[in-house]
């Protein structure tokens, strides 16, 4: 405990000394500032990657139309990793070495991030994930690995008590995806602890109910859940898997309210079991009533829907918002930290961006202020939302950091 407090103190001091002195921005007219992005545009998460690509192309256009970065043109080099760790690493190396980008947004999945972040540290280039929320991944890969996501443990700590109060929950049962690293960490460790802390009985503590990514049939698990007669179900799974569980609950007529992690956030969840209250934390959803979000959603939705290889009903997701914020932050960092975009200064420019990200910047993302804590994860305000009548409704606003006014505008 003492050791971790000391580490925190040292990191805190380091962060303070790293605050960049206001740099006189050099005029970069005629130059190009390059950033990279690694998205899963093929394979099982192709839709995420392709939507990410549309959001990034829109951002590139917006920044350049607004005068670029201190006069320089901004270019985003986007590569597909097919959600495969080996390809994510290859693309990170390619972006760093061949394309000489200043910073990289992505990779997306935690499996890819686990392998890519050590390489980012080796190469000395910032890599910021737009999806990964597996506990502790950025913390293990300081100082170059960051994630514009919030650790599920921090969110669950606030969501569960709120949920328990709203639905008068005394006993709950957990079901989780045992093959998904994030979902299984949350389902097997984080949620049981939080239920215990809030005095909620965990009905399947002894024989946890789980399934595997890719399972079509979860009827046995849901029948087992139903037989426990819980007041609420904790569903820890990525939304694409969670839908299978929700569908099965619907089929078996289970009407217990559901709470989950950010992994549940998707418009696809809304159609799975519209009659059921589903509560989850998120930093973004397409219908959020915040001006910046509205502008983003209105701008990007028609572009995504015009894309040939994306479904015609697609809505921007949390990950699209996250990657849009990441590269926006890169652009702001490049502007304010005074990158030179000269090949000789590559390493220095990369360090400038890292230091800017690690510092108390005044970056404002779509849902409010965003900064990065010493563990590399984002500190930002989030919303506790409930699926209702086919859309997400925000019930409560909270901040992912317990520090007072960490998220204040």
């Amino acid at each position, binding site marked *: 405990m003492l050791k971790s407090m000391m580490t925190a103190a040292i990191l805190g001091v380091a962060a303070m000394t790293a605050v960049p002195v206001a740099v006189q921005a050099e005029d970069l007219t005629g130059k190009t500032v390059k950033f990279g992005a690694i998205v899963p545009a*093929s*394979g*099982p*998460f*192709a*839709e*995420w990657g392709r939507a990410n690509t549309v959001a990034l192309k829109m951002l590139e256009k917006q920044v350049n139309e607004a005068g670029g970065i201190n006069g320089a043109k901004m270019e985003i080099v986007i590569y597909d990793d097919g959600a495969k760790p080996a390809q994510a690493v290859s693309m990170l190396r390619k972006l760093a070495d061949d394309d000489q980008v200043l910073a990289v947004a992505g990779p997306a999945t935690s499996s890819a991030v686990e392998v890519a972040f050590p390489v980012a540290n080796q190469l000395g280039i910032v890599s910021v994930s737009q999806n990964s929320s597996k506990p502790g991944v950025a913390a293990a890969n300081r100082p170059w690995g960051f994630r514009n996501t919030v650790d599920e443990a921090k969110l669950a700590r606030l969501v569960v008590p709120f949920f328990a109060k709203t639905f008068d929950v005394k006993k709950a049962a957990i079901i989780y995806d*045992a093959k998904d690293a994030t979902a299984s960490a949350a389902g097997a460790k984080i949620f049981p602890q939080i239920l215990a802390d809030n005095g909620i009985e965990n009905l399947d503590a002894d*024989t*946890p*109910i*789980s*399934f*595997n990514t*890719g*399972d*079509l*049939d979860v*009827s*046995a*698990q849901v*029948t*087992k859940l139903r*037989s426990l007669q819980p007041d609420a179900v904790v569903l820890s799974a990525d939304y*694409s898997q969670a*839908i*299978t569980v929700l*569908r*099965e609950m619907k*089929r*078996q*007529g289970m009407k217990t309210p559901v709470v989950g992690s950010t992994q549940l956030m*998707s418009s*696809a969840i809304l*159609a*799975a079991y519209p009659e059921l209250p589903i509560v989850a934390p998120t930093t973004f959803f397409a219908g959020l009533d915040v001006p910046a979000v509205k502008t983003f959603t209105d701008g990007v939705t028609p572009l995504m829907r015009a894309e*040939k*290889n*994306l*479904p015609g009903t*697609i809505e921007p997701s949390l990950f699209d918002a996250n990657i849009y914020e990441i590269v926006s932050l890169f652009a702001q960092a490049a502007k304010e930290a005074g990158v030179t975009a000269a090949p000789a200064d590559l390493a220095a420019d990369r360090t400038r961006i890292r230091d800017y990200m690690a510092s108390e910047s005044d970056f404002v993302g779509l849902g409010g202020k965003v900064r990065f804590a010493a563990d590399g994860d984002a500190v930002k305000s989030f919303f506790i939302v409930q699926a209702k009548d086919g859309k997400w409704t925000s019930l409560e606003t909270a901040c992912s950091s317990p520090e007072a006014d960490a998220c204040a505008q």
Partner: protein
Amino acid sequence: MGVSIFIQQVLNGLTLGAVYTLIALAFSLVMGILGILNLAISEIFMIGAFIGFSLIMSGVPVWLALPGAMAVAAVISMVIARIGYEPLRNASHITPMLSTLGFSMILQNFATNTWGSDPMQLTLEGWLDTRFHFGLVSLSVVQIVVFAVTLGLCVLTALLIQRTDIGRGLRAVAENRDVSRILGVRPRRMILVAFALSGLLAGAAGVLVGLHYSVITPYIGVDIGLKAIAVMIVGGATNIWGALLAGPIIGILEVLTVAYGGAAMRDFIVYGMMIAILLVRPQGLLGGSSKTSGGRV
């Protein structure tokens, strides 16, 4: 309480088993007759699910959507036979297996680009949405449809193989290609028939999965395909009825493992059972003599 939960779990297992049966039968038609492992069957099943889904969503009644999707699946399967298997039939058994792997990639990519990688969901209406309750146990109309179609298709396939000229031709090719030609059977046509039948069954399984689980993605074939291979082995690749026996066995085994053991051990037990069967009775539960099992690679 305990008993009705048990009955409910057995029903769950039977439904899953029915799906396994159809896909396993699709595998065994090609494996038993031609001796190759067509890995693209998993993806033909997936395409069948999407075609069925799309048809039902656009208002086509189920009794039409089912044969429609089955027909598309059969055509894809025949294309694979002509391009991916026919020219390679004299090569080792591995080469056609890998060429079907190439087709799997094409089909997955096609489905991702056409229907997206996110889950596609179906909302059932009318008579399809009905459930019967017997105390705490419940059974849906769709489940009855799944059982009926599976049983019906198994019986039809068996009749076709055992009672018709086509079936005799298929069995002749399975025994010996050259001899069958002397007997007046055209092996090339029989190969096409075997692949078409296999496609029909995989496509039907796809539609049933879509109806029952009502949520599909382009990647649903991957895991279920491997399980169906295990079902084929357990039942016996050379016997039509093997899949009908092994499907429910594996389905119920899986469900009961999840219900009374832990989901974690499920795959371990299924594949363990497959290996055990291979060691004790390589021809499968209902397979013929062990002589026929497996050619040279």
